[in-house]
């Protein structure tokens, strides 16, 4: 099948999975045109946000893999998860009444800036990754210290639900910013597709083909961090989506980024919408954090990728 046709299939699959995710819930099946409070207020905005978060994480994964030239890179490398966790936990400890999302996004951005600062000099993906591991480790320990010293047991409960990822119950108005960010992200990354293809051939080849490598890398890194911060702010840490979705898309349309970006975004959306539906109904009336569902899928995929090794 042609790559363009796969993107079309992806759109249809996304719509079908989204509609099914709206129809099913812990209280049973409801038709999507039965637009009651249950569907309109509790399920539909949640499913839409799940799709946006999945798209953002998947595109961030594509961008990060291109920047680091490593198929095993995901949006949370470079200390992003550690920074987001530290920011969120600090926010929950200091201002328990506020949503931890903005602080998490700030923590993630700060961590990447710190990693980039520590790994300054000639561009070296390995150096960046190692700096990311070190910064992530320090921030993880800071998170642990806050959790141990914070007196309120509520902090632990809030933090647990946040660290494992959860879409929550957003209002429609909360979807505007993520929707704009995802649309802009898809448009910008798709516009850079040819340059990204050349970058994957190596910096020297890309420069010889007229690509401003430093500028492109910086742009991709900013896009990856912005999309990840957006996803983290909306839903906490949802693991492996940025790894699984690009790989699933790559198997269907190959390496060229023109279609890979769009199909990855659709695959990410479908994955998180589906995972969130499973999280809602698997142990109903209890609800699982959606990150646990995506991680249970992502673990085996990650191991499979490790077997294949970096490209």
């Amino acid at each position, binding site marked *: 099948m042609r790559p363009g046709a796969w993107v079309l299939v992806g759109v249809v699959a996304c719509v079908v999975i989204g509609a099914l995710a709206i129809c099913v*819930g*812990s*209280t049973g099946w409801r038709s999507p045109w039965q637009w009651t*409070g*249950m569907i309109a*207020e*509790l*399920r539909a905005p949640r499913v839409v946000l799940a799709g946006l978060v999945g798209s953002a994480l998947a595109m961030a994964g594509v961008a990060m893999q291109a920047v680091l030239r490593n198929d095993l890179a995901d949006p949370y490398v470079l200390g992003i998860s550690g920074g987001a966790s530290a920011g969120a936990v600090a926010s929950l400890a200091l201002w*328990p*009444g506020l949503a931890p999302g903005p602080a998490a996004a700030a923590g993630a951005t700060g961590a990447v800036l710190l990693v980039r600062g520590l790994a300054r000099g000639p561009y070296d993906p390995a150096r960046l990754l190692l700096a990311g591991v070190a910064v992530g480790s320090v921030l993880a320990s800071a998170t642990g210290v806050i959790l141990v010293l914070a*007196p*309120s*047991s*509520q902090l632990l*409960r*809030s933090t647990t*639900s946040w660290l494992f990822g*959860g879409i*929550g*119950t957003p*209002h429609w108005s909360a979807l505007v910013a993520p929707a704009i960010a995802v649309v802009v992200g898809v448009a910008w990354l798709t516009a850079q597709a040819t340059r990204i293809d050349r970058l994957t051939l190596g910096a020297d080849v890309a420069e010889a083909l007229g690509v401003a490598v430093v500028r492109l890398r910086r742009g991709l890194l900013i896009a990856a961090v912005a999309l990840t911060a957006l996803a983290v702010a909306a839903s906490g840490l949802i693991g492996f989506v940025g790894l699984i979705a690009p790989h699933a898309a790559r198997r269907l349309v190959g390496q060229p980024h023109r279609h890979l970006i769009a199909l990855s975004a659709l695959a990410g959306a479908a994955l998180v919408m589906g995972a969130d539906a499973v999280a*809602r109904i698997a142990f*109903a*009336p*209890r*609800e*699982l*954090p959606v990150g646990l569902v995506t991680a249970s899928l992502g673990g085996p995929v990650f191991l499979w990728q490790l077997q294949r090794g970096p490209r």
Partner: protein
Amino acid sequence: MAVPHRLAILVSVAIACSGACSGSTPAPDSTVRIVSLHDVTTEIVVALGATDRLAGVAEPVDIDGKAAAAIARVPRVGDLESILAVRPAIVVGLAVVAAQDPDLVARLRDAGVTVHLGDPATLDDVYRLVRDVGERIAAAPAGEALAAQLAAQAGAPETPGPPVHDGHRTRVFVYDCCDPPFTAGRRTVLNDLIARAGGDNVFADLNAAWTHVSWEEVVARRPELVVIHAYKYEGQGDAADKERAVRAISALAALRTVVIPLGCSLGGLRSLDGLARLRAAIGARA
């Protein structure tokens, strides 16, 4: 809070009377050195009149004001070293202590210290805990008296209005925190308090203590009263934020709420205050 203070005074008076008036309650054994690792057991030990035997207490998190004043000069303990340093004969607390640090409990027992950890899930368990702590700290008569006092108070019709209206039991949803909501299942003291107050916890079918559920399930179970589980005993604490979170769901926006502080739901002396608050809220139903 007036109610727990009244309760503490009543309990103290009851214990004092049973000892001083009838002469049937001997003073607790003054040689027993006690360490309490939880606010609930600290309050019980203080109410049993054994404050002077407290060799150490865990740093209080949410403790009754009277008990807080009584233990102001008691050394704070936490890790194994600090506990053993005060040479306790007995360590009391709740099961959560062992859940958080099972090695600590094992090492204390290895060191020859008697460790008693209660795990109250109902008011009956609370009475049992009071008796057990009394026995363990050589204050069994005081423990019996306090347990009887609590049981009598729980049964007393001290709150306005009947708990049950025409056979209808009020459906109660407990909101602790978070999105998805964290709520009380069957194995919680709050579940028992709600039932005793004439209500039904809408998640009583969950054979769990505290767990996350979905807002969708909450709405589908059509609660009539929302218990806001607040994390500060005195004052508003985080209750206002939690109430806002509940009212953001349109199907729950108009429901009545009642604030139950954490200290009332842990299975200690203040559970009676929680019961009184619930009875008042359920009894006030239109």
